[in-house]
């Protein structure tokens, strides 16, 4: 495998973890978060600091997961207090605050970011395998969650909190759980990203990234794990495969987001489903 293939597969793996984890929050549990980049970033920074300090991969992974989920649970608590349309704006705010704060902190490297993150020692292909294994585990976990009673309760909370309460389902605990799990996974992705690039700057975690991730979830079909995985893989490869897409990346992503919502709100998953339904009828 060439170094290029290794790096693209690594990025795909990281994007899959990010998109699937966002899907748990926004797809399964219906809590629209437009600040996923902040949790990803928190994980990356924590892992980078841990790696620089201890050079221990497990510790760095743990640091990433903890940082992502701590920030996520804080935001989750906020989500308990505010209406859903406030939540979308608040999460955008969290992303801007994260970037605006880290930018000015010299202990986080400020504008310079954190460099000289020690290598994991697995080599590029070892890193890729680790990323792929964790991405697969994330997908399997997501599939399991959607089949479990937790996924069932998430759907109820996402659709109607009050109705869920009348079935004995406390929306608050589930929303916190969704944020906690989703952002822990984003933090994990952040740690993997820090291993992959070996240096990080805050610009990599900006709001546009959060929009891209939301685009993956929506285009894949909100709530559908496989659809979201497909979209994450497809949208990462698309600019690589098609020159035009590469030059007009934002135009294409923005356009797809608009068109998918406008014409096929169920995303890829629903399109494929309809296709099957039609051929079966025919």
């Amino acid at each position, binding site marked *: 495998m*060439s*170094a290029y*293939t290794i790096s693209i597969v690594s990025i795909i793996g990281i994007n899959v973890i990010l998109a699937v984890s966002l899907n748990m929050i926004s797809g399964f549990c219906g809590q629209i978060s437009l600040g996923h980049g902040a949790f990803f970033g928190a994980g990356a920074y924590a892992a980078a600091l841990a790696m620089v300090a201890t050079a221990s991969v497990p510790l760095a992974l743990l640091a990433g997961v903890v940082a992502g989920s701590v920030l996520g649970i804080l935001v989750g608590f906020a989500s308990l207090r505010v209406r859903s349309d406030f939540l979308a704006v608040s999460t955008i705010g969290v992303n801007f605050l994260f970037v605006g704060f880290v930018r000015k902190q010299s202990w986080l490297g400020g504008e310079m970011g954190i460099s000289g993150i020690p290598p994991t020692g697995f080599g590029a292909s070892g890193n890729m395998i680790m990323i792929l294994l964790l991405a697969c585990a994330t997908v399997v976990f997501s599939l399991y969650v959607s089949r479990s009673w937790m996924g069932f309760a998430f759907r109820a909370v996402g659709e109607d909190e009050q109705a869920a309460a009348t079935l004995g389902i406390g929306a608050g605990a589930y929303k916190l759980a969704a944020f906690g799990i989703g952002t822990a996974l984003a933090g994990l992705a952040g740690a993997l990203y820090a291993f992959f690039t070996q240096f990080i700057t805050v610009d990599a975690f900006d709001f546009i990234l959060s929009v891209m991730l939301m685009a993956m979830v929506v285009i894949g079909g909100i709530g559908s794990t496989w659809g979201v995985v*497909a979209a994450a893989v497809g949208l990462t490869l698309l600019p690589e*495969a098609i020159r035009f897409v590469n030059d007009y990346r*934002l135009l294409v992503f923005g356009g797809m987001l608009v068109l998918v919502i406008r014409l096929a709100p169920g995303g890829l998953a629903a399109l494929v489903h309809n296709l099957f339904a039609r051929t079966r009828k025919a």
Partner: protein
Amino acid sequence: MLIRNRRLSALAAGSLSSLAGLVVLATFAASPARADVKIGFQAPLTGPAATDGKSAQIAAGMAVEDINAAGGVLGQKVQLVTYDDQAKSDQAIFTANKLIGEDGVKLVVNGSYSASGRAAAPVFQKAGVVMIAAYGVHPDITRAGDYMFRLVHLGPPQGAATALYIGKTLGLKKISTITMDNDYGQATMDGFIEAAPKYGVEVVNKYSYSLKDRQFGSIVASVKRDNPDGVYATGYFFTGGPLVAQLRAAGITVPIIGSQAFDSEKFIEIAGPAAEGTYIIDSFDRDRKDEALQKFFTEFKQRAGYAPEGVAAITYSAVRLMADGIKRANSAEPDKVRDALAATKDFPLLEGNMNGFNSLHEMIMPIQVNEIKGGKFTPAGSITDLNAFAPPEK
């Protein structure tokens, strides 16, 4: 929330996507081999840094055409392999691996910001690929190893040279500083603040702004209150233009000294009459009687529709230097090109002649200063005390 998945459809979507992925990967694997000498090129063609990326891309293309028109190198044509890195670290690693693995490139010019250069440098170093960073100013780039070269003054030395110029040449004592919040702006300002006391320059107050800011009302009001002898600002022309205009509009008449990336005709266009009397440190002398420079100017304007800025000139020079290295090494083997580049002496860049590289492969060269007079860049001397802004050694 919209339409829920069904298992079947989801599986189908998944397999479809992996199929698409395989096809895409397969097309990458089959890239044809060419006899030309390939030079890899990374630049931010999209995203917030696209302004500079575009100029760098045009300039690099011109350099390759000029080299080929003059017979190429080693009897072969030079071919530029360009990728967009969005000035982002992950994309830089991505495209670096692509250049190495898919295109078999051994020589690279990085025409991008520090974030890209820093991420790409270790990848190239490990693969034994020579890289010249055209204008990435972060120290980490050359520290990645001996295959790395830099064709621009590091941020901190630029800042130190600025302190020298302000203190000795302009003779100003009290300075307010305005820092742009990115690695380039911050590093350059750090160098200035460290060196300032040596030349009797006192920093009255420090302010900072973000790359996205075009409105500086609060900073302007504060500078007005500081009542300094001069203002030193780091930034790009698209932030510097509005900044200078607003400083002048508030009745601040003291000299304004801008950092290298102010260097663009667009700066004068934006700031209009307010641009008058602004000094730009490490700017290039456009009037120099140099055929190559004048030709570059006319041609670039024709292609881009605007005049070239420092970024364009430096990227052009970087590609030319790489070709020169190949000629002197009489080989396109990276090890030999590396040694030839390290031995560079008095190479003519568009900005003037560079002395050479130091042990860390940092460029050694005097710093030019321009003042804007009558709406034009006018030479205002050069800073030749190389020891005052010596870059770090190995």
